[in-house]
């Protein structure tokens, strides 16, 4: 926690060792240069290119960006881009709030109420196992529950709560948010639990001795000390929802627009420069959100 860099202090680093270290880091570096940095640079470059029905045409034009924001500055109706971002932000905020509340409560229970170390590990692992299984499977798993003839509807009709099966359960905003929460609460639990486990237990005793109620301890001691975990989890959840097209596509019944889906659709029509412009705008927004969040915490210090 105190180390200024993620690396361990070099144990007796002899001169010349740096070079050996670089040979070791080289393959990993090469992968990120080839498949991350260069591709990002190309997205930026191509976003200024022109295109026709068949191919991309090298150029320097702002027409893709103009096309993205077409009609946004004039007229009373909101343009497609603003509407899409608004809908994406709405999902982001809802999913962030729900995953945070659930993730915090689950972590809090595990960290402070489960006394046995072994049980704690088992329950924590139980929460993380589904992370390693297919997202699509976990999405379509909701179909037999939420569908028109699904379990929930049969029950609702059975107890007489509704006359007709409820339609908005599946392929709706509701099912999209539900699936996001189902899929990604893990991303909140892991970092928050991790921060909670580092809290010195004597601080809690001190708070109790000073006469703090459970709520006061929670709000004034635990939450501030979990800030790092909360922010790391938030960054994961927000970046996932902002760029998602799979969950929104499958759970929204291909009806709900999202920025990620616009990019995907445009690439399927080979409109790569237009998709690239959208990607650059999305990236700029996501970076701004992350920047704002990291103002609140220095992640590297906390690793």
């Amino acid at each position, binding site marked *: 926690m105190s180390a200024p*860099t*993620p*690396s*361990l202090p070099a*144990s*007796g*680093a002899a001169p010349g*060792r740096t070079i050996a*270290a*670089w040979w*070791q*880091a080289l*393959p*990993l570096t090469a992968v*990120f240069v080839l*498949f*991350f940095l260069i*591709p*990002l640079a*190309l997205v930026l470059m*191509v976003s200024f290119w022109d295109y026709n029905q068949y191919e991309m045409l090298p150029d320097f034009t702002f027409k893709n960006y103009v096309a993205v924001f077409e009609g946004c500055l004039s007229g009373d109706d909101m343009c497609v881009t603003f509407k899409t971002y608004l809908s994406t932000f709405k999902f982001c905020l809802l999913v962030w709030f729900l995953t945070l509340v659930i993730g915090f*409560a*689950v972590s809090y*229970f*595990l960290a402070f*109420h489960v*006394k*046995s170390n072994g049980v704690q590990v088992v329950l924590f692992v*139980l929460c993380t196992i589904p992370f*390693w*299984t*297919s*997202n*699509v*499977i*976990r*999405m379509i798993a*909701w*179909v*037999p*529950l939420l*569908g028109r003839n699904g*379990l929930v509807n049969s029950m609702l009709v059975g107890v007489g709560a509704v006359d007709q099966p409820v339609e908005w359960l599946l392929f709706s905003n509701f099912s999209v948010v539900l699936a996001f929460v189902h899929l990604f*609460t893990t991303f909140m639990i892991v970092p928050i639990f991790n921060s909670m486990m580092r809290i010195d237990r004597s601080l809690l005793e001190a708070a109790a001795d000073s006469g703090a109620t459970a709520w006061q301890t929670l709000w004034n001691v635990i939450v501030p000390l979990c800030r790092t975990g909360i922010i790391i989890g938030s*960054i994961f959840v927000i970046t996932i929802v902002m760029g*998602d*097209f*799979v969950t929104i596509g*499958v759970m929204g019944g*291909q009806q709900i627009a999202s920025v*990620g889906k616009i*990019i*995907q659709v445009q*690439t399927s029509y080979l409109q*790569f420069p237009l*998709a690239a412009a959208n*990607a650059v705008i*999305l990236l700029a927004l996501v970076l701004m959100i*992350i920047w704002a969040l990291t103002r609140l915490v220095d992640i590297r210090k906390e*690793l």
Partner: protein
Amino acid sequence: MAVEKRASGFWPLALFFAAYVLFLYGPMLVIVVLSFQGPQGGLTFPMQGFSTHWFHKLAEGLGVVDIGAALYRSLGLGLTVMALTVVLSVLAGLAFRKKLWGGNVLFFVVVASLIMPSIIVSLGIGLEFRLLDTGIKKVLEAWGMESLLESYSTALGIYTSALGAHLTWTLPFGLLIMFAIFNRFNPAYEEAARDLGATPWQGFRHVVLPLIAPSVVGIGMFGFTLSWDEIARTSQAIGDVNTLPLELQGLTTTVTTPSIYALGTVTMVVSFVVMGLTVGLGKLLSKRQKSRRAA
């Protein structure tokens, strides 16, 4: 422990936790159960009998999709990603223990890759390989290699662009695990080996590697399972043939029989088998370590 009074809030929170676990596993369990529908069964309850009918249907293929081939491709890619993730993460983990010039920048890039929206990475890699295609075609044209030009289609593929896309997703996890391992690693063992005259390679092979082996197996599991289920990063970077999850995503809109649940059950079983093997192997390795130390 039973005598000790539970803190206030224990039971409501325990109930909340149980509800969360049910929420987490319930739907998955439903899929598994429904995949054993009888031949007359549909996508929902009630069960119409009990059979492995839909698994047989799955083996025959779903529509135009060759499930077997997709499964084989995903397995091959997953194993390759696993091997590369282990080797590259361990190497880089070792590098970060020493003074690494630019190490902070590299770390920042790796973390950036982890939180970058996948569609952007995918689009970028797709663009990269398409531009590469254009370049290669131009070169072939310029050199007048007509026959090669005609047979050349694209550099996009499972073991080129898709492999790279998967590595940008698995390596950050691998590297972060390596940091966690080495943060808890006692360098005294290594120093002892060095004092006894071990070469750096001997020190790594006989001292460091056995100590970190159980966690390294975990990195392998991350590599395989993350690749096995990956969709978003592969979507624009795969080329002509699809991996299993991508086929599955396509099938969600077209297949209306429990076959799709059977497919879900199969992929889940593979994930769980890999996790089980990893845990088993990890336990075995640390047990061997302990018995050796005791001996």
